[in-house]
């Protein structure tokens, strides 16, 4: 079999060599064997991604580009293999990239390049209700954006594909504009066009080292010599992780190759229509496409537990020889394929191919400028379908190189979304086993935690909380308690989150109790995962720096706190944080968990180049406890002699129980709107303080709570969060945070854009939607964010996150709405436009529209009327003696 596999590889090699030869004949295809001394952009790797970046740079008028390749032929890494499928029914951000790719390929095909682009459509199958909801949710969001998709029943599905067995299906979706293309031909065409535009290709040239000067790319050492360059682009595919390790400092590219299998049949005897839709049977983790040219089929899988390969490093040469076939691993997938299309049993085997591809730590593409080295760009992690991503990502990366930032928000794919843990090879080995299957899995919002690569970054309280039934979720590999399992008894094995659902989450009643404690009593939440920084300077440099980057006035008295955004020139949030002034030249900053790397990088890029401002990441120095609820003040007063009557904008450093140096902040710091205190505890005191609070808190009915409760609280209170509502394209004015922008300040980044919005109005606004009684919490599908919103039947926006408002006893959601006129141009969104009483708002939850109420104001929640409680209240024998005074 080993030899057989090689035979196939060589057959494909031969074919692509022929293709290359024909291109060479027609266009003077030429590769260079010597390396120029300098170039503006040096791209490492001539796979699909590298070629696409080169092509897009050339299209934008840059031509001083060198693409080098370690092998003797171009595009001979993983780009050679692939299903050749293009699918659009994806989450919005991904879909935008894929649509861009398809647009490009269509254009190439129209221009006469033979890339075999065929709009054969696809069928997305659902075997169960949850999957059907997922498809309907995607259809809802994509349909309003113009994608032609139809929800079909089993019978209709069978009519779309003559081989399909639909007996076990719940339903499915037909997307007619989905397509297939010849991956190798696209790769070659992009290279050819890049060359025609002036990019030089050098092969047999391997990366040796990267020269860095002043934190910026200076030159690339290769086996053929050194090239001075301004930009370096790492598109080295499976080798990109190792390449990142070579430079100083190392660049994090958390990817790991995984074995990917697909099977081809020989030509079938019976003839089928030339174009048949590609079938994606997500629940069986398989896809099956017809190869139009020869009446054969190709089937592949994204299996639940995948097989990582090359953990010890990818061989530089002849890596294919160390790849082996594993039929047993393919057995479940072959079984599923033959169940889905039983007639293929009679077809003859052409080949089984093991074509490893690079998967990332979270299954999403990695793109952008590395935080470690300026002008070092990364495009990596195709996650099993290079064709789908290459066009769109190449476009985005080229734009990023030229303009310094991407043209669309790419937060999800930003190379700065990782910490060092993600790049650990052993971690990646564990994690990518899972990220393959997650490409096809139903990832229920908030209910789809990773199984592998867990318990890595933990708060000192992890074990304590775990022993009390905490169910954890990981963010940035940091374990955060999501909620506490009521049923858990001490000594049981750690509770696990139940299976996810689009209806009411199975663990929901746990949250209700935690919520009640937060609203009416007192609860404790471990919030240690938030990123924390210390900013200092010798004199006032740090203040100047912050005044330049923050929209709020940060020249606050020492001992005060302020919340502020940090923005880009478009006014969009680069960071949303809390600043604590600890001394005139010292600020403590707390930001979102996921922003740990990105914030630091963004600030460093905007700092004075004389290093007068120092930034230190102190995330792991502090354990953060949020004591929340009307009884929190009384409880904490028992543990400290300090006065806890803190004005909202003031913090104190106090002793708590026997621990010293605990920073305590009032309600302002929490973004929950509840009376509460945040305690920033030096980590060595964390267990002590926690135990003391719990001991004393017993008398107050204190209980543990988790992040999901916090989330309900903030959504109910209409408080937007970074990564959900807020991103680099969202300005304070759009989310009702005008009051935190000080226009009377001197220039700060983004001021002009915001001023323009102030004058002209904003084109989108964050709104809180409240569902009416027609939404039955027990029987209807819940909103989770990502649902389209309709105003008088016209699509006007989408929700971003949703929760349950326990006090209002309604589902609530946050979301943006805009104001398109008849031509689709966006008009300013005013309060009147939103709050117009004669307007009907609806949101579409998996195909069903629900009436909602929209508001731009924080809801007025009834006061919980917390009574002052005491530890002990004596009960009098004879009540008649005393009477209440009035």
């Amino acid at each position, binding site marked *: *079999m080993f030899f*057989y596999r090689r035979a196939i590889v060589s057959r494909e090699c031969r074919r692509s060599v022929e293709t290359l030869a024909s291109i060479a004949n027609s266009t003077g295809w030429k590769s260079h064997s010597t390396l120029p001394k300098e170039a503006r952009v040096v791209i490492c790797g001539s796979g699909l991604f590298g070629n696409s970046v080169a092509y897009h740079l050339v299209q934008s008028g840059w031509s001083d580009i060198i693409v080098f390749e370690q092998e003797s032929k171009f595009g001979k890494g993983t780009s050679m293999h692939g299903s050749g499928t293009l699918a659009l029914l994806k989450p919005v951000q991904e879909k935008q990239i894929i649509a861009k790719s398809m647009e490009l390929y269509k254009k190439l095909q129209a221009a006469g390049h033979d890339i075999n682009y065929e709009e054969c459509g696809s069928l997305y199958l659902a075997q169960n209700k949850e999957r059907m909801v997922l498809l309907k949710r995607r259809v809802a969001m994509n349909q309003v954006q113009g994608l032609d998709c139809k929800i079909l029943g089993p019978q209709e599905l069978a009519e779309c594909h003559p081989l399909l067995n639909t007996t076990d299906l719940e339903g499915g979706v037909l997307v007619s504009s989905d397509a297939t293309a010849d991956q190798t031909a696209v790769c070659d065409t992009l290279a050819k066009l890049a060359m025609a535009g002036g990019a030089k290709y050098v092969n047999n040239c391997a990366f040796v080292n990267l020269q860095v000067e002043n934190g910026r790319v200076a030159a690339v050492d290769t086996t053929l010599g050194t090239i001075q360059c301004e930009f370096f682009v790492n598109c080295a595919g499976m080798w990109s992780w190792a390449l990142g390790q070579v430079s100083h400092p190392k660049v994090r590219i958390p990817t790991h190759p995984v074995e990917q299998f697909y*099977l081809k*049949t*020989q030509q079938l005897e019976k003839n089928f229509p030339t174009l048949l839709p590609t079938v994606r049977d997500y629940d069986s983790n398989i896809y099956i496409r017809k190869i139009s040219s020869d009446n054969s089929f190709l089937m592949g899988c994204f299996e639940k537990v995948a097989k990582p390969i090359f953990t010890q490093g990818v061989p530089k040469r002849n890596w294919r020889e160390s790849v*082996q*076939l*594993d*039929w*047993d691993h*393919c*057995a*479940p997938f*072959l*079984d599923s394929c*033959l169940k889905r299309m039983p007639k*293929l*049993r*009679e*077809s*003859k*085997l052409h080949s089984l191919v093991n074509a490893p591809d690079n998967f990332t730590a979270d299954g999403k593409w990695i793109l952008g400028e590395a935080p470690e080295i300026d002008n070092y760009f990364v495009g990596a992690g195709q996650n099993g379908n290079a064709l789908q991503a290459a066009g769109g990502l190449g476009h985005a990366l080229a734009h990023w190189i030229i303009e310094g930032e991407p043209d669309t928000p790419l937060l999800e794919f930003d190379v700065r979304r990782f910490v060092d843990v993600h790049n650990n090879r*052993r971690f990646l080995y564990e994690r990518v086993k899972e990220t393959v299957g997650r490409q096809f899995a139903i990832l229920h919002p908030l209910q789809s935690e990773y199984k592998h690569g867990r318990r890595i970054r933990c708060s000192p309280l992890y074990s304590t909380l775990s022993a009390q039934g905490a169910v954890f979720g990981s963010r940035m590999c940091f374990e955060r308690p999501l909620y506490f399992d009521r049923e858990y008894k001490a000594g049981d094995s750690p509770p696990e989150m139940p299976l996810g659902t689009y209806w009411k989450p199975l663990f929901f009643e746990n949250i209700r109790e935690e919520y009640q404690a937060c609203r009416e009593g007192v609860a404790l939440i471990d919030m240690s995962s938030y990123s924390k920084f210390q900013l200092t300077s010798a004199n006032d440099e740090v203040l100047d720096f912050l005044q330049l980057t923050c929209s709020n006035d940060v020249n606050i008295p020492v001992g005060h706190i302020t919340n502020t955004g940090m923005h880009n020139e478009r006014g969009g949030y680069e960071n949303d944080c809390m600043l604590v002034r600890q001394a005139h030249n010292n600020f403590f900053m707390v930001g979102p968990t996921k922003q740990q790397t990105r914030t630091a990088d963004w600030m460093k890029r905007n700092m004075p180049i004389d290093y007068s401002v120092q930034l230190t990441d102190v995330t792991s120095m502090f354990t953060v406890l949020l004591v929340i609820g009307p009884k929190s003040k009384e409880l904490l007063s028992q543990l400290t002699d300090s006065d806890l009557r803190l004005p909202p904008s003031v913090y104190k450093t106090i002793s708590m129980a026997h621990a010293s140096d605990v920073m305590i902040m009032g309600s302002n710091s929490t973004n929950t709107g509840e009376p509460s205190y945040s305690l920033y505890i030096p980590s060595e005191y964390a267990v002590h303080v926690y135990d003391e609070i719990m001991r004393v808190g017993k008398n107050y009915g204190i209980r543990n709570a988790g992040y999901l409760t916090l989330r309900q609280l903030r959504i109910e209170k209409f408080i937007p969060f970074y990564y959900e509502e807020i991103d680099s394209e969202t300005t304070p004015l759009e989310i009702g945070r005008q009051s935190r922008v000080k226009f009377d300040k001197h220039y700060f980044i983004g001021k002009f854009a915001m001023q323009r919005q102030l004058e002209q109005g904003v084109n989108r606004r964050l709104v809180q939607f409240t569902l009416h009684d027609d939404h039955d919490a027990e029987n209807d599908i819940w909103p989770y964010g990502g649902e389209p919103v309709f105003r008088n039947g016209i699509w006007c926006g989408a929700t971003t996150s949703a929760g349950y408002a326990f006090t209002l006893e309604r589902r609530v959601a946050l979301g943006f709405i805009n104001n398109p006129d008849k031509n689709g141009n966006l008009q300013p969104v005013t309060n009147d436009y939103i709050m117009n009483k004669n307007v009907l708002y609806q949101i579409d939850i998996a195909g069903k529209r629900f009436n909602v109420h929209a508001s731009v104001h924080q809801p007025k929640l009834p006061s919980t009327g917390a009574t002052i409680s005491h530890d002990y209240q004596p009960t009098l024998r004879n009540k008649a003696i005393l009477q209440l005074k009035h």
Partner: protein
Amino acid sequence: MIFLRRCRYFLSLSKSLNGDVSFGRVYWRVHVLPFGQVPVTLRPYSARLSPNEVTTILRANENSEDVNIGSIKSYDSNQLASNSPIEDMRAEARCLLTTGMLFGVYDGHGGPACAQVVSKRLFNYIAASLLPSDVLHKLLLQQNVNKLESQFLRLIDTFNDRYEMVEDLQALYYKSFQLYLQELSSQGDNEFSMHSELERAFIRLDEHIMKEGKGELITSDHCDNNENLLKKTLSVALSGAVAAVAHIDCEHLHVASCGDCQVVLGTRTSEADDLSTGWSAVVLTNEHNAENEKEVQRILMEHPENERDRIILNQRLLGQLAPLRAFGDCRFKWTKDEIAEYLAPVLGQQANVNHSITPPYLTSKPEVIYHRLRPKDRFIIIGSDGLWDMLSPAQAVRLVGEHMSGKTVLSPYSLPPGHEDIKLGTIHATLMRRMEAFKLKPIDSNSATHLIRHALSGTDYGLDHNRLSYYLTMPENTVRLFRDDITVTVIFLDTDYLSQRPL
């Protein structure tokens, strides 16, 4: 031609064969049934033994000990006879005066005599070689005082030793051993070298066997019937045995091997808890046979150039003997005169070996390999070639690994030959049968039995009972064509212990 006995000798002492010598070992391999295939001539076969009966046969010789000494956690061993009586032997023992343990597998040929004797004596020789001379002095003195002549010095403590030497031989061997002790004690304390001590023990034991075969060490006071004794010692010297011995002391593993037994180390390549995958096999021995280029060169260099093209004939030493190192086999060690004097009277014409001009051609000098055990080394398999004919080292390690994980793992599936037009449905059917098999738990708790069972009946889709039953019920005169005696010892190492040892 398939009725050629597969044996190391083409001329057996008991039953001489008329076969053509040109059918060497290479042809033997043809008769090993490859996975998933049964020669057409053998079909159809029906199950003649019930699964229980098969299991009873397979487990007859199994043995497990929880040792828990140093780095050794436990061991499993088992034997399955093909010859009657079995020509393979095994031995496991703890050294009483030093801290190590010894494990040996011996594969006899031309009768079981030599292997039996070597398995009984070799560990004593090795254990004695490890002792410093002052300890030896003391031991010898004690022995002289106590006059416990009929007993060996207690240098080792054997496990599961089911045989005892007959009395007259015991006395003779005791005397020979005393000679060895005297030699060792008179050496003085030179720098100790495990390599040379192991070599010395192997070589000296063989020398003693040779001498005893000639009657040189037999004196009248030993026994009433010297002629009878000489018959025995001669049969020992005439038959032969290959040996592989592992000495394990903490993290130090020494393997001494002469002949074609193999020692294989099972090593983890993955950190994962799932023991069913992520193994690699490290072979710690070189087989001394004609396929070993270096070994062939060694022998050729020891003899005059004009003999070169006759020393290895048909993959065998002088056209007769498959292993190129062995105990016994005096016909390849003695000079023409010695053969004429001691052997010819008994064997007549058969005593001579063709082309033997400048003996000795055969040595018992072992090849010694040292390996420092690491925490990722989990077990050691010692097997006679009966096992390695059926399983590759990698397969064997996989099997023991999966046995440790409690799951069933099969050899990777590969398409049958001539698969150009194979239908997906056909592949699918086989893969589904394999998936069923993967769910099964190993039948045997003893990993050596597990290996033997899989060696005999492993197929693409799991164990084939018919095949196993067929192998076990073959008539005595043909069974040797299809399987040799199999002896396996699997030694499990203590990972926790090894991870605490200094690197």
